């Protein structure tokens, strides 16, 4: 089964490492995976996004013309991508920064106050991992364990950050246990 996810936010929100960790996790699990960043002039704008495709067979196109999942870390990302999503897909919103609702009524919406939780955890910069945790739990495409592996690999150069980010990851992952009404 082929699953495509677009992760988007503005530079500095760490969407790239979200994508890399996710892709790495999928590889750890022996799945087929492609990761495609946005590149070139458009980056100037200050928004960054990437596309991760995960499948149990070869992946034809690394591009997601109608993604199954969208993770919007900020308002502009929601506006830009929501219309692309396939009907029945799931939209993950960083509710800490996004007040507005989606215009789509044919998709599931999951709100994660990623920045707030990250602040609670005392590591505001780890909002991305909070979101990623929540995402893998609800989308269920890769396990927490391999995502942590993926995370470690992604942070290769900055080992000291691992602990914090792992914490954030789990926090996001466990959101849906604590049964809070998101």
């Amino acid at each position, binding site marked *: 089964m082929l699953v495509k996810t677009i992760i988007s936010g503005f530079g500095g929100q760490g969407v790239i490492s979200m994508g890399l960790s996710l892709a790495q996790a999928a590889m750890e699990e022996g799945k087929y995976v492609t990761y*495609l960043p946005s590149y070139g002039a458009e980056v100037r704008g200050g928004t960054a996004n990437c596309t991760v495709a995960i499948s149990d067979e070869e992946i034809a196109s690394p591009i997601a013309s109608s993604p199954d999942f969208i993770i919007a870390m900020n308002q502009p990302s929601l506006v830009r991508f929501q219309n692309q999503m396939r009907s029945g897909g799931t939209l993950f919103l960083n509710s800490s920064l996004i007040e507005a609702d989606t215009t789509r009524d044919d998709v599931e919406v999951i709100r994660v106050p990623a920045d707030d939780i990250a602040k609670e955890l005392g590591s505001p910069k780890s909002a991305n991992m909070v979101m990623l945790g929540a995402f893998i739990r609800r989308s269920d495409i890769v396990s927490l364990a391999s995502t942590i592996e993926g995370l470690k690999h992604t942070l290769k150069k900055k080992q000291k950050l691992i602990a914090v980010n792992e914490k954030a990851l789990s926090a996001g992952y466990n959101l849906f246990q604590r049964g809070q009404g998101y």
Partner: protein
Amino acid sequence: MVKVLMNGNSAIGEAAIRAGCQCYFGYPITPQNELTEYMTAHLSRKKGCTFIQAESEISAINMVFGASLAGVRAMTSSSSPGISLKQEGISYLAACELPAVIVNMSRGGPGLGSIAAAQSDYFQATRGGGHGDYRTIVLAPSSVQELADLTHKAFDLADRYRTPVMILGDGVLGQMMEPVEFDYEAPRKLTARDDALRGAKGRPSRIVKTFTSNPATLEELNWSLFRRYQAIKQAEVAWDTFMAEDAKLVVVAFGTAARIARGAIKNARKQGLKVGMLRPITLWPFPTEKIKELASKRKQFLVIEMNMGQMLEDVRLALNGAAEASFYGRTGGVIPTPSELQRVIARDYYQKGLKGRK
């Protein structure tokens, strides 16, 4: 060997280094910058190795010319506009029978165009965008793994046939990350080619040149090149087929277009359409014989490219009337989707009346 997640540009760099590439000369251009940056990181301070960010693509290709004179494995890379600037240099490399690997991570054209992936440089790559009667081997990978494998192969072919070899990729292949593994654990240790210029020590002095005031000499050079090209055509044609055996309609596509078409074909099969694919891996030499063979089995052809129809000419030359080849192309950096291609394939399948036909 373990798999690592790498983008295509870096994978070329790593494969080149393991293939014993000691010299890289580049100039920034999107979408191949990761390759240049990979080479900086790994060659610029390594003993016996050289990385130079040249002042231009022209300078870079001529530095490659110089390094190749010295008998070491050398590479340059760029993207469409930069490759156009290298044409004179490539012609000189071919004429002087100097091995070299040139990577074109091509983008939308003409002009400054777009930085998105395209295949519009097929003619330039396969027909010799430079002046004179010469050809360059052209390799067309369609995955990060294949980028790595073909990079190594490119260096071997270049040395074996003393010719420049081009790797024709595109923005998607260069930017995309996929798991990849490398066939050599460590960089190969190679000694300088024995026809290298490194000073006339214990041997007569050597001359590397093409200029002559006697055309007959130059004609002889051309003939010797073409004898070699014949040998290459015999020995090095490479392609890949997918569900072609029982296919009534054969899609011919390379690189990124091929991998997308592959997905479309899978789905078309699910619809019960007998579709398969021929994917040329060497664009020059082109798998002409393979196409003739498929045509002899009463198959029909659909060429799909990310350009306005360039490889199409090679397919038609191969078919030579034995079958019709229809064409579908997107260009300027627009990348077709699997479902789009599935529709195109189905339409063509029905139009050719292949549905019922035994």
